[in-house]
């Protein structure tokens, strides 16, 4: 049967905050825009972001974008590109006002201005007093943003392909991107979308780890598609873990629980944080607590039949306090772990939360790859949001800066696509070889016979990632991990689907996602093994210090031959002075 085809000016893959804000810029123009999303747009993971978005509006306390920039550069442990960071912190202000104008119901102060709350890592006057920089729409910020942007696009007749799964990018012999092959999930029918510009906005990849706070849809599809198109991934070793996720499940338990007097114990009932951080104890920074938990488990002091977690105690606070001050935690404990936190301790383990690395782009969302001694733009390809790496978060992201990243750079990408379309009036000729290659990724799953199941290989892969490319990173552990991951990757061709039906075949989608998890996860594991220093979220007991002389550079992982390359950090901002690297103390 002939492959169905559609033509658009722009194709946006992903309908989270990044994809929808890109689409919004094109919504009221002549451009014909397709937005493809594997789930209904307002079910994108952005909906989980309840904390808010940073912008130096100075509505509650004095603030300006330059202080925001300082905090972000410092938070990045000096790996963030200072031109991109300046761009983001300046653009934050009009971006939030544009959202307000478009109808996002931000919480307000009595004087009618947008309310702003204080978050960790925010300072006034370059490291001085606490700032209040985070704007929120009650506890529904992510949903409010998605809902508003989606409505705008529906009104502007953006063409939505809801519940379509993007399989691979299509490229020509010169490396230009021509669109993508997608599949309707309900029918299993493939569809070729030709576009003059394609934007990847597919979000994060937390599902590469066994324990993650990310929804099941976050499987790094866009990253893997880019890798398969020959594009490297940048700074993938930088993955942020939250110390307390529900063990084996991943749901976040907020720091607030330890703030209220909760503490961690090992199987001997010992308050082990006293050993790792005698002063701050359970309130030490996220990476310190995460590593302490993993060390306890590795050294045989973990709890439970498999000794694979520690316990978070709040029951000593008494039922009344737990119910009054921590009602959400009590509910979560009951629903996800079958434990009433007022009576028993909760099983916890570090949970994979956010990836700083991704598809390398410039501040206009254009994907860039190394070429000779410099860099080159990939014609027709953009990326924005958690799948991209501009890089504004460097080695560590500050709370409230990732919603900002997705909105600012989603918008910038949309605007640049518009410019691009003015110059490129015609579609490039289709490349049948590339289409066939993408189709074969789909038809490969029609093979029948005995084999390994998707779930079996996926579970093994995610566990290996957790054990060997997670919080605890020594040469020995990671080198062993990379070998194990490669061996698991070699098993991929033996995976078979038992259900061959085309209709509503979630198993088929999960098989395609499994391949994406492998490509994205191995990029993380390799990049982590190769970086021989500790910086931001990448912490190595065997190289405990940051090493600016050798490692103040971005990593680039190429799928072909599992190859690494590096490029310099852009330390020169757009208009202000460089913030030189300093030791990062809070």
């Amino acid at each position, binding site marked *: 049967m002939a492959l169905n085809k559609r033509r658009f000016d722009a194709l946006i893959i992903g309908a989270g905050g990044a994809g929808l804000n890109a689409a919004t810029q094109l919504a009221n123009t002549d451009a014909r825009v397709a937005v493809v999303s*594997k*789930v209904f747009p*307002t*079910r*994108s*993971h*952005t*909906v*989980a972001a309840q904390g808010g978005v940073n912008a130096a509006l100075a509505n509650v306390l004095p603030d300006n974008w330059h202080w925001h920039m300082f905090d972000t550069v410092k938070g990045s442990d000096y790996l963030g590109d200072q031109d991109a960071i300046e761009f983001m912190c300046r653009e934050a202000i009009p971006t939030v006002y544009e959202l307000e104008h478009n109808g996002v119901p931000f919480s307000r102060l009595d004087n009618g201005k947008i309310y702003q709350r204080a978050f960790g890592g925010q300072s006034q006057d370059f490291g001085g007093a606490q700032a209040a920089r985070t704007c929120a729409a009650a506890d*529904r910020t*992510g*949903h409010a943003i998605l*809902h508003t942007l989606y409505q705008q696009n529906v009104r502007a007749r953006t063409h939505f392909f809801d*519940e379509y799964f993007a399989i691979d990018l299509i490229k020509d012999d010169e490396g230009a991107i021509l669109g993508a092959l997608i599949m309707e*999930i*309900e029918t299993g029918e493939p569809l070729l979308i030709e576009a003059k510009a394609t934007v990847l906005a597919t979000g994060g990849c937390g599902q590469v780890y066994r324990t*993650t*706070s*990310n*929804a*099941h*849809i976050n499987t790094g599809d866009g990253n893997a598609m880019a890798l398969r198109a020959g594009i490297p991934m940048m700074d993938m070793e930088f993955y942020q873990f939250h110390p307390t996720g529900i063990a084996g*499940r*991943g*749901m976040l338990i907020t720091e607030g629980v330890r703030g209220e007097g909760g503490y961690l114990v090992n199987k001997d009932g010992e308050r082990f944080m006293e050993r790792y951080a005698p002063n701050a104890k359970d309130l030490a920074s996220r990476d310190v607590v995460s590593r302490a938990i993993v060390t306890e488990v590795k050294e045989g002091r973990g709890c439970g039949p498999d000794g694979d977690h520690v316990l978070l105690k709040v029951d000593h606070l008494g039922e009344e306090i737990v119910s009054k001050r921590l009602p*959400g935690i009590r*509910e*979560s404990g*009951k*629903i*996800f772990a079958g434990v009433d936190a007022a009576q028993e301790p909760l099983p916890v383990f570090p949970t994979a939360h956010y990836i700083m690395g991704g598809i390398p782009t410039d501040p206009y969302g254009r994907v860039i790859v190394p070429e000779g001694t410099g860099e080159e733009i990939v014609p027709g390809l953009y990326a924005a949001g958690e799948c991209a790496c501009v890089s504004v978060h460097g080695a560590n992201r500050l709370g409230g800066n990732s919603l900002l990243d997705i909105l600012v750079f989603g918008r910038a990408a949309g605007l640049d696509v518009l410019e691009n379309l003015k110059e490129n009036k015609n579609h490039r000729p289709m490349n049948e070889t590339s289409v066939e290659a993408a189709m074969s990724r789909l038809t490969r799953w029609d093979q029948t016979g005995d084999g390994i199941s998707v779930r079996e290989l996926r579970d093994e892969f995610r566990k290996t990632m957790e054990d060997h490319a997670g919080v605890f990173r020594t040469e020995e552990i990671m080198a062993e991990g990379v070998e194990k991951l490669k061996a698991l990757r070699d098993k991929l061709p033996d995976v078979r689907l038992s*259900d061959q039906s085309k209709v*509503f*075949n*979630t198993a088929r*989608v999960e098989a395609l996602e499994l391949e994406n998890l492998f490509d994205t996860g191995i990029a993380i594991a390799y990049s982590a093994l190769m970086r021989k220093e500790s910086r931001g979220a990448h912490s190595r007991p065997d190289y405990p210090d940051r090493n600016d002389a050798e490692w103040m550079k971005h990593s680039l992982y190429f799928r072909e031959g599992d190859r690494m390359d590096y490029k310099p950090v852009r330390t020169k901002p757009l208009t202000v002075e460089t913030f030189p690297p300093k030791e990062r103390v809070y």
Partner: protein
Amino acid sequence: MPSSVPLSEQLRWQCRRGMLELDFVLERYLDNHYDAADEAEKLLFKELLTAQDPELQIWILNGESHPRAEFQALINKIRGI
């Protein structure tokens, strides 16, 4: 069975949400309870899945009551407490 009552596999993708917490409880219900449920409950589940994520969060995760009483038993089952 009338065609409006979907098979569990037809609803599996609808259980994919923007929050891990919802993925977990909805799939747990689908795997453990859906097939054995009566037709009325199945139709309620199908309808429940059309709600927005923050609404599901309030009813299922925060335990607030659903404005339509007929959903409450199903929601309690999904909460699994």
